[in-house]
């Protein structure tokens, strides 16, 4: 149907991030004995539909940037994701994609980036950062501002060590025990106190709708224009190809026209 061809990928790595969040790496399952890995072409911000036969599909953003593998950060939040996190190395993962728009990385060359993420919203941003790691020379300064619920729920701790060295990484948590040495407070506070100006910058935000809303308010106060801000929307994407209607916001299909949007282009849309 609908040219929705499912392809088998093979899981080559699985890493537990937090209690119910896992990072998976998958490669295209090879046909025959060919030793060459098939090249993948996906961009940060895009998503794949991940399948569990008998349960359904879940749209998951890519969180890597590589030619021969994709990484997905999966949180058990529904039927499909509950089952996905039970997969192990060597298992087949049936996917279709990539779908949707991506962060316009090439257009952002030469700019300084502010990447703001909340919770699992940091996952798609990891793809962006992986791109920046690869093409570091193309970008001016890179600021990473991440917020998590608690220190336990922090994602990509290994990556963070590297990012802390090569980028300006700042993190905050909503709540933490007395022994926590890092910053405590909402992500908006982190943004407010960052002292960043809007000159030659692009902002990329991903996180829950409320977080996006208030972060943008903070950025407005700091002099950022909506044309500088890119956000990613979450909706119920069933088909992924702009047919089923579930992900529509006004006339926009989040699956096809999004999920990545420049904020000025969608800020006035009615739900």
């Amino acid at each position: 149907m609908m040219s929705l061809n499912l392809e088998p990928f093979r899981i080559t790595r699985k890493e537990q991030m937090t209690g119910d969040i896992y990072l998976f790496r998958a490669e295209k399952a090879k046909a025959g004995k060919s030793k060459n890995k098939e090249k993948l072409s996906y961009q940060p911000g895009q998503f794949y539909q991940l399948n569990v036969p008998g349960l359904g599909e879940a749209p998951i953003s890519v969180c890597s940037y590589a030619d021969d593998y994709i990484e997905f950060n999966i949180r058990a939040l529904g039927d499909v994701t509950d089952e996905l996190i039970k997969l192990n190395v060597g298992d087949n993962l049936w996917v279709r994609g990539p779908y949707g728009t991506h962060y316009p990385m090439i257009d952002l060359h030469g700019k300084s980036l502010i990447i703001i993420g909340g919770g699992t919203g940091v996952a798609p941003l990891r793809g962006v950062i992986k791109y920046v790691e690869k093409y570091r020379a193309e970008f001016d300064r890179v600021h990473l501002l991440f917020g998590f619920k608690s220190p336990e729920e922090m994602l990509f701790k290994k990556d963070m060590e590297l990012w802390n060295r090569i980028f300006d990484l700042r993190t905050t948590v909503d709540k933490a025990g007395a022994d926590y040495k890092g910053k405590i407070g909402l992500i908006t506070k982190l943004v407010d106190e960052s002292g960043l100006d809007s000159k030659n910058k692009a902002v990329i935000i991903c996180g829950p709708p409320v977080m996006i809303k208030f972060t943008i308010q903070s950025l407005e106060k700091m002099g950022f224009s909506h044309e500088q801000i890119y956000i990613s929307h979450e909706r119920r994407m069933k088909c992924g190809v702009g047919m089923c209607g579930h992900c529509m916001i006004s006339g926009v299909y989040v699956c096809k026209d999004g999920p990545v949007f420049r904020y000025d282009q969608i800020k006035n849309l009615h739900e």
Partner: protein
Amino acid sequence: MSKMTKKKVHVRKGKKIKKIINQKKAVSKPRIGIHSITGCAGCQLSIYFIEDVLLDLLDKINLVAAPMIKEQNEEEGYDVLFVEGSVSSQEDLDNLLKWREKTKALVALGACACHGGMQSMKHLMNEKEVESAAYAKFPSDPRVKPITSVPLHKYVKVDFYIPGCPPDKQEIIQVLKHFLQGRRLRVYDKAVCHECSLKENYCLLDQGIECLGPLINGGCRALCPSFNHPCTGCRGLLDDANLESGKQVLKDKGFDVDLIIKRMTKYNSLQFKEFEEKTNINNKK
């Protein structure tokens, strides 16, 4: 892939198999119970009426308690407990509270358990009058301590609802399948009208028949309207049912307001009352 990683994968695979074997040992068939409080027991019967696949399903579960069809019944350690009927007496309540403690998941089976059913019409009447009408002629049994009939969730946590009077056979099968699959259960949440128009039925409202389709949760595959019987609401009001407009639909067709309310409250007195209260509060605002 290098030799190193190959070996690694192999080890992991071995671990995986071990894990599955361990799981197999640990997880035996889920222990299912079926219990009953005030109701007609018809819901329970509709479980037994899924003859065509009942044996296949019984193969996958361990039916440890079902007093209607079994002599030996276990009193505890349920994985899933189906309870039919509404809480209408102290005895019902005592049982329900006891069962809730003994089960991991509780499923409200049928209209009474989900929404209160017909016996909950006391909510819209004078309780004393109802009781004297029912018991005046007969000496009251001291064991019967009637309480205003309510659905299960008013007293205990309910994990899932299978509404309907009686519940739909296919839905019971589906719930059991989804449970065995480890799937999160979801109550069908689209109006009866939806399933009815997918079947291209001749709309009963268009024929001047007092159907409640637009207000009621479907999932029944519009069984009644498909046989020209108006929907009487056994699956409960939609979460966002527009009662005022629903009343107007029937008024426009020339039906008496009293009749309309009787129809709407046949199974769902409590839900109806709660909706009305909500509307009143909103109107006052």
